């Protein structure tokens, strides 16, 4: 077991983890933050996307020990005072989600994208979200949501 110090959604945690523990299972099973989900085992689907030091990463590709000393933001840490974050609000208004399973990852990837590129073109959005799969929406309204969030 390894000791890690990790900040998650602004809260510091000191935890013992197995060296093979993936960050996503640390978040889900040790911290009970089940908003971040697992959709594949090949780092393809992006459902587990979180922010590590502000940058979007697939948390199934990162070991918990690699996040030692880092600040992680999950979907639970995105809104404030009960209000949805602008990206969450845009996904709601544009019907950018159906079953909602890929949504936390899609939202976190969008937050990461807009931090790097505040007003992306349609094409840029489609390529930036290439690593996040959605089987419900055909992406039409996800692209609309990202644009609406960028304009908000």
């Amino acid at each position: 077991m390894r000791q890690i110090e990790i900040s998650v959604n602004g809260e510091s945690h000191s935890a013992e983890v197995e060296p093979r523990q993936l960050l996503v299972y640390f978040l889900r099973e040790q911290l009970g933050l089940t908003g971040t989900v697992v959709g594949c085992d090949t780092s393809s689907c992006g459902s587990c996307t979180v922010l590590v030091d502000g940058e979007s990463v697939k948390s199934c590709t990162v070991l918990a020990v690699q996040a030692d000393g880092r600040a992680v933001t999950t979907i639970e840490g995105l809104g404030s005072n009960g209000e949805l974050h602008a990206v969450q609000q845009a996904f709601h208004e544009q019907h950018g989600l159906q079953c909602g399973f890929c949504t936390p990852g899609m939202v976190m990837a969008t937050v990461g994208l807009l931090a790097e590129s505040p007003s992306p073109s349609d094409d840029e959005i489609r390529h930036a979200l290439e690593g996040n799969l959605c089987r419900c929406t055909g992406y039409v309204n996800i692209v609309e949501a990202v644009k609406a969030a960028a304009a908000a």
Partner: protein
Amino acid sequence: MATTEARTTYIGAPVERKEDARLLRGETRWVDNMTLPGMVWMAVVRSPYAHAKITRVDVSKALAADGVVAAFSGAELADEWAGSLPCAWPVTGDCHIPQHHPLTADKARYAGDGVAVVVGESRALAKDAAELVEVDYEPLPAVTDVGEAIGDSAPVVHDDYGDNRAYTWPLKNGDVDRLFSEAAVTVKEHYRQQRLIPNAIVPRSVLVQPVLATGEYTMWSATQVPHIARVTLSGTTGIPETKLRVIAPDVGGGFGSKLNVYAEEALCLVLARRLGVPVKWTEERSENYVATIHGRDVLQEIELAATAEGKITAVRVRLVAAMGAYMQLVSPGIPLLGAWLYAGCYDVEGYDFECVGVFTNTTPTDAYRGAGRPEATYAIERAVDSLAHKLEMDPVELRRKNFITEFPATIASGLEIDSGDFHASLDRALELVDYDGFRRDQAERRGRGDSKQVGIGFSTYVEMCGLAPSRILGAIRYGAGGWDAATVRCLPTGTVQVLVGTSPHGQGHVTTFSQIAADRLGVPIENVEVLHGDTTVIPLGMDTYGSRSLAVGGVALYHATEKVIAKAQKIVAHQLEVAEDDLDYAGGRFTVKGTDKSMTVTDAALSAWTAHNLPDGLEPGLEDTAVYDPPNFSWPGGCHIAVVEIDTETGAVELVRYVAVDDVGNVINPMIVDGQVHGGIAQGVAQALLEEAIYDDHGNLTTGSMVSYLVPSAAELPRFEVERTESPSPTNPMGVKGVGETGTIASTAAVMNAVVDALSPYGVTDVEMPAKPERVWRAIQEGGAS
């Protein structure tokens, strides 16, 4: 009851979804999020061979591993089963339905067939220990190709049957042989509907909690069909239906893949019974690829007979459809869901259809979005383009010449289309796509020998969904009814509970059904609570598949509100001391004609609860249930147009425009309907251009992950341009039709017709799906069908 024009506030409006907020916050109830005290994890040991005798299974090393609670071979669990896993659709009297236990004991029949289970204290410990189970296999020759499996010398999947034929199912109307012999023109085409893997992003997951004191079991499952699972798993496990509660909490994308009753559900139930503790299993993606049903995998032959002027007179179809290694819930019936649609939206006289179902050493096939109808639409729409080519006629003109125009219309296959307007949707789609402008651009590119060629493809379609009239389902040997149920419970505080027998997994039922209830009962939408997916809370239900939830469940809800309003009217008439006929009803309020005296349904709900002043003989409470059995299928239709650009030097196909004009009757929530169409189109386009499950000669699935199986991302798809025409269904009071599958049903043919149109100057008449660059490039080089 006197009913004036109802004030509609919500129906027809793009009401933002009530489901969203907690999904967006990650406050979700996926089964995999759930943990119970004392819970253990199940891992399944699966055969790596597609076909092999099992000569020894030894779980002792797994049992000795740290954190392992139990381990069993298939033989060791044999006594647990009261019956097979269910197949509810033996399509003929002699249809072969092989015994299918959750673990196989004698022979593995596909790569992924379960042979043992290990139960451990954690997900990881169970998985580690599963690696320690020793299984001796004697590999046998395997057959994965459906065309080969039907041959005389093919390896036999189920020894008892002697060969791999499961059934032959015919449907014939009219003197087809005469019509073909008299035809001025005929075409005969062969298409391959490749095997697809549904790839819902949410893996399946099951958690069973036993209550030892009462012998009751609660199963949470990521399923589309909690009610059907309860009935059938009772038969598989011997747990009485009265002791089994199935809950579908938050369930993600199904697309048919969760319209099934799976081995792992049965295994978790019997392990919980045997071990007396909660048992959980969550599918890994690599497991999903082999252990969750696949779709399509059908060889099609279609012939059209036509006059010299292009009037189609008869259709003849022969299918060879892969069932996979076993019959899952509705495997045999999937081709039948398309069997009536091979003449499409065209007025045809003669109809001759036959399907042979065939076992192969592969993952079982079953319902994947559209289920039988994308295949039918593909065959007729591609064949119509071939006929147009042969007649040197514009494909639009040929379609117009053959459209069914009068409704209700009895189609060649014998069913009745209730309403539609195929010209209207085609007209609008042509306008949106600028057909003349497109053809000019195409001619210019062809003229200058541009390396980038463009093509346009049409798919004018009609489909049958909203499964379905129970009597018809009975006549085609389906094992259950097609009704659904809804309960409306008006509570004394003015809030309304709506209990529905459908079970959503992304379709937005909570919002759509709230819109219906809120408008009908005149309450704010926030005051409506929709409950679903729990067999104890909602005992009556037939669940969600086949685009049935609004067309059947939503209509049941409408009828339940009618019943509640009728009872409220008795209460109001009594309290206002007028005759029931003296009341007008609109938007939740009863008004005495010619006065301003009124009472609301909400007022009546409180009165019904206090029961202080009710008419003699009227029971307290304001609640009622309606069970609706539809008199006909639901018949959406429309026109989809795809425009592709093909790089003739590389074979790469880019979908540059996609226009869809659908007719799904009256629309409750246009935003949700658009979303359903978008998602459906994406899946149909993916079949045309990207997705294909491939087995190697030994029966290994070589496309067994999201790395090798191409689920489209946003980067592979364009924006879809979606509009509607509206031909209300006359068979239900809301005029609604199903919409969940239209996009998938229509789009594959549109895209492939566009690909072939782009390549027609090269002499190409067909390209096998998916139209990946290599195939397209070869087709160009060979100047003919690839």
